[in-house]
């Protein structure tokens, strides 16, 4: 069964066979796709351009080039507007939460996938519930859970919540992955006298690396972009994460109008995800294709 041929392959034999209709359709398709591409790309380019302009220039004309290409806006956003602090907070929260959720998620998925014990099904359905129900249902009680354990408005509190809400997705995907790993390596490890702990950390976890990488990328994007949880649970400005800082910045800018710095802050926020996207673009697309996100 041959699937539809790869889209980028140019079949030279048939090149000359294009009919007039084909050419017309191809031209129309290109025009439509190019328009959509422009609609996607132009706002980003405009933001980058504007981030080099002074607020005065931004308000004067959306299209004009900056009189001086300077990084003043970036310096201003980074230091005065607090983006540096927000950036640092985000790196800490997302970094620690990512490591924790990958480790705990892998452990949980491994046990669920490779051992049989009473209650496994219950755990499975609880995880499914965690994936299905909107966070909004939990947000108010969650606020008080954190308050009662003294973790409200703290980075550790935010980290725990990030881990907890990223867990179901992580477990579901890695569950399928651990199930698909071959048994013979596992058996060999046991034969050699390796215990459960060593088997997991030295044999099974390294074998699951491709799956782990994919889930880690999706978790990174999800956590880096998270908005509701920090806005509700982390209201101390010195502990803001980037997304919160951006919202705060914009609501101030409405009157104080420092659009130059706002555009610079947008660029600073987008660059890390752009880098992740460009490096892992193939893996991201590949895993969407395999239905990871289900």
């Amino acid at each position, binding site marked *: 069964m041959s699937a539809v041929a790869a889209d980028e*392959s140019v079949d030279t034999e048939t090149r000359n*066979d294009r009919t007039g209709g084909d050419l017309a359709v191809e031209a129309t398709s*290109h025009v*439509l796709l190019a328009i959509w591409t422009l609609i*996607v790309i132009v706002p980003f380019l405009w933001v980058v351009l504007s981030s080099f302009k002074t607020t005065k220039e931004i308000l004067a004309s959306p299209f004009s080039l900056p009189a001086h290409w300077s990084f003043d806006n970036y310096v201003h956003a980074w230091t005065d507007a607090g983006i540096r602090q927000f950036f640092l907070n985000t790196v800490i929260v997302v970094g620690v939460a990512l490591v924790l959720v990958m480790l705990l998620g892998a452990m949980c998925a491994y046990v669920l996938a*490779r051992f049989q014990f009473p209650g496994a099904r219950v755990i499975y359905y609880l995880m499914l519930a965690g994936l299905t129900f909107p966070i909004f249902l939990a947000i*108010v009680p969650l606020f008080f859970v954190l308050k009662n354990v003294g973790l409200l408005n703290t980075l550790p509190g935010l980290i725990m919540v990030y881990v907890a809400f990223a867990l179901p997705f992580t477990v579901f995907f890695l569950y399928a992955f651990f199930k698909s790993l071959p048994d013979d390596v596992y058996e060999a490890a046991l034969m050699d006298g390796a215990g459960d702990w060593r088997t997991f950390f030295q044999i099974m976890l390294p074998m699951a690396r491709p799956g782990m990488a994919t889930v880690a990328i999706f978790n990174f994007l999800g956590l880096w972009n998270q908005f509701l949880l920090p806005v509700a649970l982390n209201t101390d400005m010195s502990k803001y994460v980037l997304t919160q800082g951006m919202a705060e910045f914009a609501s101030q800018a409405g009157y104080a109008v420092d659009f130059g710095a706002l555009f610079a802050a947008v660029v600073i926020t*987008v660059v890390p995800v752009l880098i992740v996207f460009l490096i892992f673009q193939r893996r991201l697309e590949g895993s969407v294709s395999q239905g990871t996100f289900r």
Partner: protein
Amino acid sequence: MTTTTGGRPRPVARSRRMPSLERLSFMAVFLGLPLAIFLVFVIYPFGQALYFAMTDWNGFSPSYNFIGLDNFTKLFHDDTFMKSLGNNIQLAIVVPLVTIVLALAIATMVTVGGPTKGNIRGIRGSGFYRIVSFFPYTVPAIVIGLIWAQVYDPSAGLLNATLTKIGLSGFEDFAWLGDPRTAMPASMFVIIWSFVGFYTVLFVAAIKGIPAEIYEAARMDGAGRFRTAISVTLPLVRDNVQTAYIYLGITALDAFVYMQALNPNGGPDNTTRTMSQELFNTAFRKGQFGYATAMGVVLAVVTLLFAAIVFAANRFTGGGERRLRR
């Protein structure tokens, strides 16, 4: 990458011996730690929400009364909330529909839209289009909202400047997000814009999984591109469409981030206010925690209902199993 094979015996784990001490400690740590966090921060709050929703708790007093379903009765007479519910329903109908149509159209062009002779393939240069349109998916939603708030800005925004430049009059200072007629469509467009690329990639994968013979057969039978897309592609990717519809619907029923960035105060005449914004304000600005949680319950119920309706609609129209429509 291999996928689940299933049905394979897992020998050691199946043995009936008493588990060793090492195994017990291993299971306790490996299951116990993640589950404890999950139960405390996810399941417990979900459970509590159902109870809070039936109290008059306002957050300032330590005590509160159980008032049954009063909060829900109050909700259905709350004009602002009902308006928000209506807005969310509009969002849940329009956003998935437009996103899926656009994504399917792009996916079709880049996979099977190529020449009518030779191999079944897409048009040239399709990889580029796919990569570019996927990118917004990775950008934080709040940032997307802020970028578009600037694009829509009446006087300094990109959109009005462009429209004026190409000779359209009346757009010099048109407030896209401030006019009750355009605030909602403009907001919807932002959400659609950010998701088209992601679902394009999903549909591209689904279409590539269709055997080329089916397309060749359709071509021999004289089906044109449009006919092929409607009668061959669509029925064969309908389960993917269902998944996409549910995910997009859930996003649209939330929509919190986008609306907070575009119109934090609900827009002109509350035309873009959503249940999520209403819930957030009621809880964290007004401190009416019991009432806000009741809104959360309604939001959850609407979300589940939505998913059920999509499943039922797909089943009812003959989906659920992959087959070709004659």
